[in-house]
């Protein structure tokens, strides 16, 4: 069977993308998001940045105010533009471009958007990825999620939204470590790495962080993450010679027993990886993943992959619950290791069933 996703190839490589990078700032209620935002807005290096917030009054920027552009937009002394969200985020983002082009506001080179504490990240990402005007001007650069060291572990255990916000993150910011019990911040950081090992985990006290560290911190290498998960028993590698195999249930149980430090309950969000030796059939993979997300979208919190679908470079795949970014074909592999790697963050579904299903779909396509 086939085959390459042709339009993805046409999209080119990330380096050629000149759209304005957009960072989504999320976090559970009381997790220190507003404190972080207030310190960020006051930072002298926030020039040429537009920040969309829920309430201007909440972020305490009066003594940094340079000009009030209109009733909902202010220019700060750093050159940072701050405006409140009126309603629809896509409308707001389009309006910012229109006002910049009309010369009503200064030019900006990056955007940060604050979400409400209870916001589900997937619908916001869906808006960003499906609005054609927004897609033309902005690219989603990353999601920053704040989790506080005092209440974060409890929220992750009890609140479904908190685990979703941690899973969707590219940068996880542990806050309030200065007022938490000794060791709480480190324990939370470990828990966050088990949920989302791909994200950078940063510890911040009183919102003190350089904007570039927050808005442009690199994520971890997906291939390293996938291989670490496999080494911990949360992954399966394809056998040599292009033939794949799947760990059976007993083998999985043994793997988990060998890694008691990474035990988790069946409904606890955690990451696992699938590593495959031979190129994937793209048609079968697309059908498999779309079907998986339809049937288990509330359990599959995040899917990220670097896949060999037979082209010269890998295909980068990034999905959040039901929402999948347009796959991006990279120009080349970084080295000779072309194995496909898929990292899944999920809860309430069996790792070995996901693997077995993918292998069965791919094997069927390969033989038809």
């Amino acid at each position, binding site marked *: *069977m*086939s*085959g*390459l*996703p*042709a*339009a*993805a*190839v*046409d999209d080119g490589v990330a380096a050629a993308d000149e759209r304005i990078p957009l960072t989504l700032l999320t976090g559970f209620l009381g997790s220190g998001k507003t404190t972080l935002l207030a310190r960020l807005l006051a930072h002298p290096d926030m020039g040429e940045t537009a920040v969309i917030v829920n309430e201007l009054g909440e972020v305490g920027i009066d003594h940094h105010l340079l000009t009030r552009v209109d009733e909902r937009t202010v220019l700060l002394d750093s050159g940072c533009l701050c405006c409140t969200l009126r309603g629809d985020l896509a409308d707001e983002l389009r309006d910012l471009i229109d006002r910049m082009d009309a010369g009503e506001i200064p030019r900006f080179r990056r955007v940060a958007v604050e979400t409400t504490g209870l916001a589900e990240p997937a619908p916001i990402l869906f808006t960003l990825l499906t609005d054609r005007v927004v897609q033309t001007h902005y690219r989603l650069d990353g999601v920053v999620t704040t989790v506080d060291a005092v209440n974060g572990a409890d929220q992750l255990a009890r609140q479904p939204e908190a685990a979703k916000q941690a899973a969707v993150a590219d940068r996880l910011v542990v806050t309030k470590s200065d007022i938490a019990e000794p060791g709480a911040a480190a324990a939370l950081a470990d828990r966050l790495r088990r949920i989302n090992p791909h994200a950078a985990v940063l510890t911040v006290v009183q919102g003190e962080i350089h904007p570039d560290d927050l808005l442009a911190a690199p994520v971890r290498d997906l291939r390293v993450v996938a291989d670490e998960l496999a080494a911990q028993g949360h992954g399966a590698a394809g056998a040599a010679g292009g033939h794949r195999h799947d760990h059976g249930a007993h083998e999985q149980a043994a793997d988990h027993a060998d890694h008691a430090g990474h035990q988790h309950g069946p409904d606890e969000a955690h990451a696992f990886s699938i590593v495959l030796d031979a190129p994937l059939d*793209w*048609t*079968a*993979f*697309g*059908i*498999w*993943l*779309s*079907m*998986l997300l*339809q*049937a*288990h979208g509330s359990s599959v919190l995040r899917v990220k992959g670097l896949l060999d679908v037979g082209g010269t470079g890998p295909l980068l795949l990034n999905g959040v619950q039901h929402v*999948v*970014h*347009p*796959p991006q074909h990279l120009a080349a592999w970084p080295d000779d290791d072309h194995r496909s790697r898929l990292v899944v963050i999920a809860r309430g*579904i*069996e790792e070995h*069933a*996901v693997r*077995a*299903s993918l292998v*069965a*779909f791919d*094997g*069927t*396509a*390969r*033989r*038809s």
Partner: protein
Amino acid sequence: MTDHWAEVGGGVRDRIERVRFLNTVLAHWGLRLDDWGNRVYVLRNWKGVGKPVPDLGKLWVIAEQLNGGPLDPLDPALIERLSQAAA
């Protein structure tokens, strides 16, 4: 089927292969997808009740309606069926 992330690009051959593979999977639930002139897709259940399908994302929603329940790719019976077919 043009707007779904898994379907962007590709030509007639890809459409034919996609439908053929989908039918291998859908047969597990007694469903069949037809491609009418490479323009319109129609999904039918074993009773012959059919519905048009705009894209892959909607396919699974419509398939659930026609099937009267979810189509789970992790269903052990489906995995077994596909594995045997591939062996």
